[in-house]
């Protein structure tokens, strides 16, 4: 079985309040911030590994995990991070973020799917820079594949023919079974200790969160292949449908007052804020 996992590099999400807007308001700059794999995409890599492992943390996969990205040459670094976790190889399609929209990303992935013929595509539910949450659903439609978005739990049968997915939705959880090939988008809870059950590595729980790369993993990753392609190689239509024409800083809330006692708080809420 082959799983394609998409990965976008993003400016360190824990310092998203430090991104800057250029003077003319046409660009966001993240100078000084570290580039990281989009957290949800890292969860996607973790999910793919858990689906294919023949034992918890065994490192032996019952198939191949391919990490694909669109970005500048430097993204090889984040691809290597994913390869160090245990993915088999990478594909880097060169492209600039500001010349892409979700549909171009989805079209690019569709071309890669045509080329690679995976049984499953796993994507993070959203990139935490653009926060759009669109590409996986678009890809599923372009491919004519079923989608299971916002997956918090995935169970696959031993023969890897389908996935039973618990989707995190408003008001609770929706359970769906999708036959492969399919597109999954993963949510936070997929990396809890029991987020993936592949019915082979059953009975033992994973550690919370995406796995750390071992030293051996990092060494091995250096030798793993990364194919480099262009959007033209893939014949992707690059017409932007959605343009972000300017950026602004949202109005910040200002810090209020620190009160000494709970009594004072209640009095303020009642008399000043008038919310009690």
């Amino acid at each position, binding site marked *: 079985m082959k799983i394609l996992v998409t990965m976008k590099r993003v400016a360190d*999400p824990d310092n*998203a309040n430090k*991104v800057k807007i250029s003077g003319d308001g046409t660009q*966001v700059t993240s100078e000084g911030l570290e580039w990281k794999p989009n957290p*949800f995409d890292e969860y996607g890599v973790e999910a793919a590994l858990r689906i294919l492992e023949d034992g918890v943390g065994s490192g032996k996969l019952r198939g191949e995990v391919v990490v694909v990205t669109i970005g500048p040459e430097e993204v090889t670094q984040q691809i290597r991070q994913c390869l160090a976790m245990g993915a088999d190889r990478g594909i880097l399609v060169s492209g600039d973020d500001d010349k892409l929209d*979700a*549909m171009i990303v989805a079209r690019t992935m569709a071309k890669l799917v045509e080329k690679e013929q995976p049984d499953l595509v796993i994507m993070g539910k959203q990139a*935490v820079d653009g*926060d*759009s*949450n*669109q*590409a996986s*659903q*678009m890809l*599923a*439609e*372009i491919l*004519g*594949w079923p*989608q299971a*978005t*916002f997956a*918090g739990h995935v169970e696959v049968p031993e023969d890897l023919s389908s996935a039973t997915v*618990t989707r*995190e939705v*408003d*008001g*609770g*959880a*929706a*359970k*769906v079974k*999708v*036959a492969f090939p*399919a597109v999954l988008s993963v949510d*936070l*809870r997929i990396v*809890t200790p029991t987020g993936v059950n592949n019915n082979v590595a059953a009975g033992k729980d994973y550690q919370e969160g995406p796995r750390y790369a071992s030293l051996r993993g990092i060494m091995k990753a250096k030798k793993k292949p990364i194919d480099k392609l262009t959007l033209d190689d893939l014949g992707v239509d690059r017409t*932007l449908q*959605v*343009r*972000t*024409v*300017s*950026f*602004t800083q*949202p109005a910040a809330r200002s*810090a*209020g*007052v*620190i009160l000494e006692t*709970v*009594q004072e*708080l*209640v009095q303020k*809420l009642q008399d000043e*804020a008038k*919310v*009690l």
Partner: protein
Amino acid sequence: MGNVLIIAQIQDGEVKKATNSTVTFASEVVSHIGGAYSILALGDDLSGQSEALAALGAQKVFLAQADGLDNAIAERWTPIIEKVVVDGAFQVVVSPASSTGKDVLPRLAARMGAGMASEVVEVVFSDGKLNYTRPMYAGNVNGTVIIDTPVEILTIRPTEFEAFSSTGASPVEKIDVPQAPEILGKIEFLGFEKAESTRPDLAEAGVVVSGGRGLKSEENFKLIEDLADLLGGAVGATRAAVDAGYIHNDFQVGQTGKIVAPDLYFAVGLSGALQHVAGMKSSKVIVAINKDEEAPIFQVSDYGVVADLFKALPELVEEIKKVAK
């Protein structure tokens, strides 16, 4: 002139307030581009919601009713919405940024070759185009977006638009629902597990009391619940509290969880990570209770109390009871 189609949000048999907020947004769009707005609702049987939908001032209310539509399977909903959009020559399709809206509308956009903007918080009209403002980078940047396709698809953030109220009676049309497409053979709906809560919906509540890792245990979350119940509010949580198992993930407030904007928000025992703040910073009044005076949450709160929550919360409940008398 363009027309706007609103996809109604219905949950537990109820037309959600988010739908009313979407109507307000649609009215704004119509004021810019002319035309009128209509509403489409999809479900197994919408006879119970028809009246509420007809009271939203729409030119028309379309009801798509067929077995299984309550399950909101994107592959099933998409061709139905597409048909209504094409038949009615709608230019803008908009839904609240609910989990269903987020799941279905991108699929619709790809199907129709239409551009899409997610979680729109503002719309203006400039140089003959609708300009949408949407938060990015966990709400630290606002992007202004223009869509260049004949049909524009949007989800909007309901907390940023007043809920429309009206007593009109729009004409209601039951549409012919197209047959389920073949792809439905590859997706099976197995069930819905409801996150049980007797409290108001987090997204609609006037008061939200949220707890973080500072609560230390699932049992201690009762302190949060007590305050919420006293004020008729909803309970929220940070990702850390959810990950620690104190509360179900449906109650997570933040960038990738629920976006809330109540009149009164209590942030208790939480530091104010920017991912959390992204989900609550539009609240009218924010109160923070944290024993660490350096906690970033105090930077966004109107009132802060530096205190041990295990002492402050019970005290707060007692004080509020006193003044309520």
